[in-house]
């Protein structure tokens, strides 16, 4: 019985160390990547649409996570149409409303009553880094962002 007890204690200590280290790492990473500079996403969207977007309202403004949505951007109908046109003109972009959210993004979507079936999601994961390097004018494109038109809130 004793070896089993020591094995369990040893395993739990190892897991606790791994858990502590990764938790601290993600906490630091989260701290370092929480906020993108002001207007970071707005500027890049304007470069993409090649038109000014005065109604651009940034609801979530985070930096490069691969797995999470980094920005949630609300636009009025006019500006939303500009983006939509730019996206439709770009054959690389797809519109995919089916995505699952979790954590803070999920909370924000619930809080802002965003209908996730009616948003454009510009999702980094579908295209990879190479694609973004090739886009004219953009340079570094924001990672996963959700853009929605303000009238589409339910």
């Amino acid at each position, binding site marked *: 019985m004793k070896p089993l007890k020591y094995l369990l204690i040893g395993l739990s200590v190892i897991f606790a160390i791994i*858990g502590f280290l*990764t938790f601290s790492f993600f906490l630091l990473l989260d701290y370092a990547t929480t906020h993108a500079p002001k207007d970071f996403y707005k500027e890049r969207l304007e470069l993409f649409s090649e038109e000014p977007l005065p109604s651009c309202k940034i609801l979530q403004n985070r930096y490069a996570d691969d797995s999470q949505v980094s920005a949630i951007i609300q636009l009025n109908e006019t500006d939303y149409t500009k983006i939509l046109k730019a996206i439709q003109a770009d054959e690389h972009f797809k519109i995919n409303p089916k995505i699952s959210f979790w954590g803070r993004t999920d909370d924000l979507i619930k809080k802002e009553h965003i209908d996730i079936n009616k948003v454009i999601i510009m999702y980094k994961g579908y295209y990879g880094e190479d694609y973004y390097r090739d886009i004219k004018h953009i340079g570094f494109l924001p990672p996963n962002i959700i853009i929605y038109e303000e009238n589409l809130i339910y």
Partner: protein
Amino acid sequence: MDERQLFFKIIKKFLLWILILIYAFFVLFGVYVVLLFGLKIDILEFI
């Protein structure tokens, strides 16, 4: 045992339980991380 001693005894027990819970959290988080990054099993996906 006077009131003061009893108070500290309860506080000690309380703190010990808090530490155990924090330790348990890290153990579970460690298990989750090992499963997620090591074996590519996301147990939260099943919830």
